[in-house]
């Protein structure tokens, strides 16, 4: 073993962090998110036990939340990772010199996302039933709007992320794995919105996923979930999807003017 070779390789990775803000941010990003999510989960459990309430169906809360969260995550990945696959394969240019329009391309990615979601959902629901006797279908008819809402939000985040990767190139590709998780603490996936500090509660009101997870918990607890909240979630989803599309098309126009589209494909 030669120290000069080890230090050269160490230096190689330090140089990488020096030139890539996204990689630098990533070092702090995941621990911070974990700390937030699991901190709020602990707070939720502590409050429940402190109130002397009957132990809720934690299995239903956590497994249901996990499966539904994966729907959002896979929907987002169906767009941004599928896009990255073309960049990694250097096939991007071949696609965009074909008659394929950018609108057609986005619709195809949305369909890929739906395909991934269906497969992941069915496998997860089956495993949860076999391994833990947890029946996700107990949510009933609400499951359809919940899934739909998460898929649309996943599309919006995926399109936004893809727009950023398009603009900032492959150095921004870590966003494909990280951006969705930015919404996790304020989406109240594993705990109710009421556990969050007041300012984050206000933020949660504009995150469509928070309504889905609140709804899921309400149903698992045997309560009803107001349909108007679901409508609000859909309204927000439509706005975010629209904004993400506007952002993506602007980025596309910008990279075309700067000649970056061609560089991304080679």
């Amino acid at each position: 073993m030669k120290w000069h070779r080890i230090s050269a390789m160490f230096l190689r990775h330090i140089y990488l962090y020096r030139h890539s803000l996204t990689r630098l941010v990533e070092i702090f990003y995941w621990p911070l998110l974990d700390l937030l999510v699991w901190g709020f989960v602990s707070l939720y459990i502590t409050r429940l036990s402190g109130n002397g309430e009957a132990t809720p169906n934690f299995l239903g809360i956590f497994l249901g939340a996990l499966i539904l969260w994966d729907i959002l995550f896979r929907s987002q990945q169906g767009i941004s990772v599928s896009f990255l696959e073309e960049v990694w394969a250097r096939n991007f240019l071949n696609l965009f010199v074909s008659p394929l329009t950018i609108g057609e391309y986005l619709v195809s990615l949305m369909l890929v996302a739906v395909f991934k979601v269906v497969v992941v959902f069915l496998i997860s629901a089956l495993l949860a039933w076999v391994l833990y006797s947890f029946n996700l279908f107990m949510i009933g008819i609400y499951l359809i709007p919940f899934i739909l809402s998460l898929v649309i939000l996943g599309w919006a985040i995926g399109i936004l992320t893809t727009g950023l990767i398009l603009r900032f190139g492959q150095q921004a590709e870590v966003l494909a794995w990280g951006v969705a998780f930015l919404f996790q603490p304020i989406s109240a996936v594993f705990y109710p919105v009421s556990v969050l500090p007041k300012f984050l509660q206000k933020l949660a009101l504009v995150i469509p996923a928070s309504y889905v997870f609140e709804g899921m918990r309400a149903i698992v607890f045997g309560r009803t979930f107001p349909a108007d909240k679901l409508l609000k979630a859909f309204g927000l989803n439509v706005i975010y999807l629209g904004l993400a599309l506007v952002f993506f098309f602007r980025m596309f126009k910008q990279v075309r003017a700067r000649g970056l589209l061609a560089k991304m494909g080679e």
Partner: protein
Amino acid sequence: MKGKDNVLLQVRNLSKTFNSFQAVKSVSFELYPGEILGLLGPNGAGKTTIIHMLLGLTSPTSGEIRIFGMNPLKSREREKILNRMNFSSTYVAMPYSLTLRESLTVFAGLYGVKEARARISYLIEQFDLKDVADRPVRTLSSGQMTRLNLAKAFINQPEVMLLDEPTASLDPDIADRTRSYLLEMKQTKKMAILYTSHNMQEMEEISDRLLFLHHGEIIARGTPEELVSRFKGQDLEDVFLKVAREVRP
């Protein structure tokens, strides 16, 4: 047969500036059916930027492009243009996990090719890819990948073909066969080809006309013989070296 009526591709005063760097300076040229037009020039001369602008991948700063009488910067016209045009470059690849045949099937779908299966089999045969047709793209050699790219470029039987150093990684035998195929397409199908290459012998052999680019400008144009005589060179390679070293006619 040249004339205003049958021009397939027309470029007028095309310029591209990236920040303060002028990559292409007021370039004008035409491309006619059954013609091979070579773009010649040192690295950074603006050849690839011109091709990318023709494909609508990069928007020009100023100037006009007309392909089949349409504007590639207008999305609806671009779609129609790209149905009748294609492109191949050594520097692009195909999805690694798909087989060669699957890749071509995807592109046949993108170009709306009728009787796709027969067309794909013909191209696989034509580009000597039969042995690797059902192998994943990631297992192909660079020469096989280049041939796959060329097969993709011919999938829609284009009227205009843009080729960016298409033979760069081919061995002399396959490169020669590729040139023969291009010449055949030019003669039998009246395909118009815009061609870039750093192989001067190839450019001399294949091109009807040449545009010499330097620092984004066309500094000379004509047949290979005309350029050799104008620059008082022994051959095109000699001319290229003179141009790259800033010697003007």
